[in-house]
């Protein structure tokens, strides 16, 4: 037929062109890939990841099932602490450890968008946690990774629908359960949730089934920060604030709490409270305002790369205030273009300092993380790694009563509330594991090690350690 014949000729012509373009495209891609190098071994975007050690072929599940014998553990893949010692420290009873079971868990993280760096490091922590749990005789964790697109409320709601429709009743979350948008479904679907990325914040406290496992940043750190400031700058009094615009409701409670803490510390709020858009790199509007109203201490409540860009521009503009930020990331270092290294960068939060960790779990985590990913873990990787262990701890509590019991969201929540002090990779020493403690009312942490640190010239130095509310304050000489 004419029509068919025409199509064939047409298709043939396009095919040759396509071949030409395809070849050119492939060559370009090859050049591009070569130029990019192997920078990123990112697998964060994958879904339904069976993250257990089984895929490694190390028969992890049988490595340390004996657990309690201090001498029985074989060396972990990274050459870290013997898993037998670790099993004993974790109090693992092989009967309730869950070996042979496969547990489905969700993880709704920032896998794409501006915060995809966070999603990547969090998935690394979770994957390594699952691998170690299997090595220690635990179940196989099968994660369903879903994307909230770095704070997109609609994406978060959709992810929750997907998890609930799959019958998954345990999940890891970030961004304060995606800045509150997923909290209703978390409660209605009875999905037991640990948020080690954003915590509860001030706005999501006491929400059923939702637990924030990191300190509320920056508010939990402020008493300790002010104590450090008063000790080191006794003649300075005024405090100003610049931070992210996180939405009216969150901004309001954050401001009220911050101003109250400034007053409680005997310092003086100088009237500067400027909120800036999330993810902005150009601070040319806010810096002149700060300069005209410069406080002695400027609290910088912004995150990711933003503090780096701000530090660079503040340095050029000649701001002299002591600047205190509340997060330290490689993105910030890169964005600072040398300002962090040159001028120093002060920050305060529950920062994970790989150099100061001594507990067997921390050492194994850090060494294996380095072996797996070629770099030290940051605090997001640490938080999600330890939260995988917290999930397992809750499961073991359930299985210790009935080895065949279902790990429903309700059962997990009840199991956690039996003892709200759980295992952590922060703190501890050579013979004990670190812990953190959650509050039964607020569902946020009541005890978590944090401090004031300074990054300068490629080194991070602790200046003071304290707990929530400035408790147990200890200056580092």
């Amino acid at each position, binding site marked *: 037929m004419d029509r068919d014949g025409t199509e064939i000729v047409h298709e043939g012509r396009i095919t040759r062109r396509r071949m030409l373009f395809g070849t050119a495209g492939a060559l370009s891609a090859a050049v*591009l890939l070569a*130029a*990019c190098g192997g920078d990123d071994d990112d697998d964060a975007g994958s879904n339904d990841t069976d993250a257990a050690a089984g895929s490694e072929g190390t028969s992890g599940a049988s490595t340390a099932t004996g657990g309690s014998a201090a001498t029985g553990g074989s060396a972990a893949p990274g050459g870290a602490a013997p898993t037998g010692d670790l099993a004993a420290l974790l109090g693992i009873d092989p009967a309730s450890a869950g070996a042979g079971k496969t547990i489905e868990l969700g993880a709704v993280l920032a896998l794409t*968008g501006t915060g995809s760096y966070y999603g990547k490091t969090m998935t690394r922590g979770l994957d390594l946690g699952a691998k170690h749990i299997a090595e220690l005789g635990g179940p196989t964790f099968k994660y369903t990774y879903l994307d909230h697109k770095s704070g997109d409320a609609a994406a978060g709601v959709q992810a929750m629908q997907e998890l609930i429709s799959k019958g998954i009743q345990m999940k890891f979350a970030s961004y304060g359960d995606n800045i509150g948008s997923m909290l209703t479904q978390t409660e209605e679907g009875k999905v037991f949730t640990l948020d080690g990325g954003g915590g509860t914040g001030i706005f999501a406290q006491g929400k059923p089934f939702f637990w924030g496992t990191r300190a509320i940043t920056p508010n939990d750190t402020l008493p300790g920060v002010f104590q450090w400031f008063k000790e080191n700058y006794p003649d300075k009094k005024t405090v100003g604030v610049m931070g992210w615009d996180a939405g009216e409701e969150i901004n309001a409670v954050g401001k009220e709490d911050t101003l109250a803490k400034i007053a409680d510390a005997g310092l003086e709020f100088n009237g500067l409270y400027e909120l800036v858009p999330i993810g902005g*790199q150009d601070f040319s509007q806010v810096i002149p305002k700060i300069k005209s109203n410069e406080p002695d201490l400027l609290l910088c409540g912004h995150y990711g790369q933003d503090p780096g860009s701000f530090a660079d521009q503040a340095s050029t503009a000649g701001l002299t205030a002591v600047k205190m930020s509340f997060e330290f990331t490689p993105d910030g270092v890169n*964005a600072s273009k040398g300002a962090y290294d040159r001028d120093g960068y002060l920050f305060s939060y529950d920062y994970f300092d790989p150099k100061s960790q001594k507990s067997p779990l921390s050492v194994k985590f850090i060494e294996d993380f380095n072996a797996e990913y070629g770099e030290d873990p940051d605090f997001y990787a640490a938080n999600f790694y330890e939260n995988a262990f917290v999930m397992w701890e809750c499961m073991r509590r359930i299985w210790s009563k009935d080895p065949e019991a279902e790990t429903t969201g309700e059962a997990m929540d009840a199991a956690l509330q039996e003892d709200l002090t759980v295992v952590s990779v922060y703190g501890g020493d050579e013979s004990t594991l670190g812990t953190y403690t959650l509050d039964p009312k607020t569902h946020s942490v009541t005890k978590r090690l944090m401090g004031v640190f300074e990054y300068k010239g490629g080194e991070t130095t602790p200046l003071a350690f304290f707990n929530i509310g400035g408790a147990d304050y200890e200056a580092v000489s």
Partner: protein
Amino acid sequence: MLALTFETFRQLTVDGFFRGCSYGLLGVGFALILGVTGRFHFAYGFLYTLAAYLAFTFAFRVNWPFWLSAAIGVVLASVGGSLIEARVYRPLARNAGPTALLAVFVAALGIGIAGENAIRLLWGANTQSFYGPTKEPYTVWDAIFINFDVWQAASGITITLALAAMLRYTALGRRIKATRANPDLARTIGIDSDRVYVIVFFLGTFCASVAAIWYALKYTVDPAMGTLPVTYAFVTAFLGGTQRSPIRVFSMGIVVALIEQYSSIWLEVRYTQTAVFVVLVLYLTYLAIKSSAWTARFSRPRIARA
């Protein structure tokens, strides 16, 4: 109430001017593409990002000289713009017929999103430091700025003037203007509109790419860096007029940036972007009123007189 000094005002003005040069250049490129081809080129932000990443790659992975790397990044991204027109938009527009506008818009949106995520996959999600010449601060009129600000302004003004001159005095410029006025009619007098479209996409992306290099030098390179510029490019192009001279569009970029800067005197910084959109809405309302039947009644006698 926060203190506001004259020094603050001067700093806001100087920063606004330099920032406006970036908005202006972005607007010039976007207006050229939208005005001539009618394509809502949402992938503009992706190409902006791509230019910076390519320059970064050649400078820091291949270790070529900075300026050569920057030039290659700009040219390759501009070629990418032309390829998108030739290989995606044009075939789509032809096949879509009356719904071409929507088809191209959706395709552009898709390329923008897929492109941004492809950059994440290829280069990683992390922010990358982009170092070039040494940053040098200057203080004039008690306002601080850096050498990159000056170079950004100089390149923006030069490109805009060159583009305006090209459109006015060269044969290519006349072909572009003829195509902008009526592509079908232009075809009947022997102008290859398809070729003009490809050239326009090259030139428009070139403007964005140059702006991207300065942005990367001043700040940093990250996969989402093109999201906001495409919005400002649209606002600037729309307020400046997509059928108007590049000089007018460029000037509008400075006006937009100054509105943003000055609004921070009265508003919190978080609301200054909103201020720009309020101006856009007011302008749209003005246009609507201007063309309404009510105002037409007053202009009819003049038409009659003519």
